[in-house]
């Protein structure tokens, strides 16, 4: 008879209406500023610079080799190489970027800079609350704002960061001269990460790992 299907539909919507007041599970909305969705490990948006140790400026892994600047398709990276060498987190004298800027209004989040970096110095961030009133200065990130600790990297991409640390530790152990106690100088999280199984590393981890350190 005409109308039976309508009544069934009304019952269904009525159940949804009342159920949404009773069970929280029905409501799929995450009310953003108060509630937050769990972090998704594979997400990425803009690059940041990883530093070891405690001092963001001296601990940068970047040695300003210009590879990322040259490879960047939209040319949003600007690097100025230092004229002197300073000891990095491992104590080895290195060139460092006197200036390192990424224009995130230009960046297209392609991750090519991450893939080409031989030093694992640049990685993709997950920070998304970047809206700002000033579209020039606040979207051109200097190295002070780009520098983020290795611990932060571990927080946002745990498996990938563990694999990177393991590889870095292996490379350092290989490059180190025999008598010198090089492993002692390695940054704190590295030995911990080195104990992890390399098989746990995701396929997404950059495979262009250099061994220059």
């Amino acid at each position, binding site marked *: *008879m*005409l*109308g039976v299907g*309508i009544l069934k*539909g*009304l019952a*269904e*919507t*009525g159940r*949804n*209406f009342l*159920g*949404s*007041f009773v069970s929280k599970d*029905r*409501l*799929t*909305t995450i*009310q953003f500023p108060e509630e937050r969705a769990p972090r998704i490990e594979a997400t990425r948006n803009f690059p940041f610079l990883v530093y070891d140790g405690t001092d963001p400026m001296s601990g940068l892994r970047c040695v300003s080799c210009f590879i990322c600047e040259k490879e960047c398709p939209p040319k949003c990276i600007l690097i100025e190489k230092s004229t002197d060498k300073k000891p990095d987190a491992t104590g080895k004298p290195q060139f460092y970027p006197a200036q390192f800027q990424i224009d995130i209004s230009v960046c297209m989040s392609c991750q090519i800079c991450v893939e080409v970096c031989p030093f694992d110095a640049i990685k993709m961030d997950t920070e998304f609350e970047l809206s700002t009133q000033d579209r020039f200065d606040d979207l051109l990130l200097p190295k002070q704002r780009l520098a983020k600790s290795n611990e932060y990297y571990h927080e946002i991409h745990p498996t990938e960061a563990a694999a990177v640390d393991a590889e870095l530790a292996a490379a350092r152990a290989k490059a180190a001269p025999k008598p010198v106690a090089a492993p002692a100088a390695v940054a704190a999280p590295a030995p911990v990460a080195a104990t992890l199984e390399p098989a746990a590393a995701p396929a997404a981890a950059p495979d262009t790992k250099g061994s220059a350190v």
Partner: protein
Amino acid sequence: MTPETIDQIFVITKHWLLGYVPAALQPIVSAILSVVPILLAFPLLFAITTVLERKGLGRIQNRYGPNRVGPLGILQPMADGIKSLTKEDVVPRAADQIVHFLAPILIVIAAFLAYAVLPIGRNMVVVNLNAGLLYFFAIGSMVELAVFMAGWSSHSKYSLLGAMRAVAQMISYEVPLVLASIVVIMAAGSLSTVAIVEAQTGYTYTFPHWFVFTPWGFAGFILFMIAATAESNRSPFDLPEGESEIIAGYYIEYSGFKFALFFLGEYLGMFATSALAITLFLGGWSAPFSWLTWIPSYLWFFAKLLVLIGIFIWIRGTLPRLRMDQLMGMAWKFMLPMTLLNLITAGVWHFMPGGILRWIVCTAMVVVPCILLSRSMKQGKTLQVRTYRYAE
């Protein structure tokens, strides 16, 4: 304060205020005092309805709905109003400027005029016309004119299509709308809305004499509500503004406050037809049980109105939009025969002696044609999952 005083408080206040006015000005002041509360109450109800509708539809779809402006989002209408007032009012260069300007005003005026004959409480009606129902339907068809003015003057294909659809739909459904309400005129013996409500105010064993509690009244109420949904362009009959097909229909070229006026007119029209359904079938302002008559009559009216609005929202959250041929088929193949048969049923009810036999005969006269008609409408139609040959 006795319950009678509270019931008549607005009437008493009006007469008290009129006492301070010179006799020459009394008719005009009396009219203003009757009209202004309606001009305030129903737009306020519109504001409440918009937020309730959005929240209700949200809950039906397992969302929260608006909950940011004010506590629980109840100030959302204010934000909407400020937004539509501050938006740019764009008028297409090719549009007929005057008609384009007049259409939204006319739709709101037509909706407001209909409230003149609706009794919202005991002794609370703007004018007690002895042809009140006729007046209501005459004013109701002004909406079609406004809609077509909007569609035609915009000089746009989509708005013209929407207006054509709207006119076709509204004229088609006006026939069953009027025919469904004729049964009430037959029973009450009057076209006056006040007399119709008074015909329903009696009680038998605490149960009211509402027309909806008779076979022809129930059928008439359902048919009236279907036709009223189509008349007010509500889902599932919202073809004139089908967003997915013709973007927004007749008001596609309207922006800013004129757009808001169309919404206001549409909702006021919905309230007016709901209020008429209450007046005709649900006993107007009378209480549903004789031991509840101490509650003021206007509260009963608005309670019933809110229930009907809730049903409208519920229907909107449930049903998808009809196709144009289904819409027309529904009007002419189902609604029209049913309303005509309902007229005969009401006549049979009137002339048969009261008793259980009258109930059986009249119920059969409503249910059997309904089943047969819905069977015949289904004939030749196989309901199945559609398969596509080329598009996958």
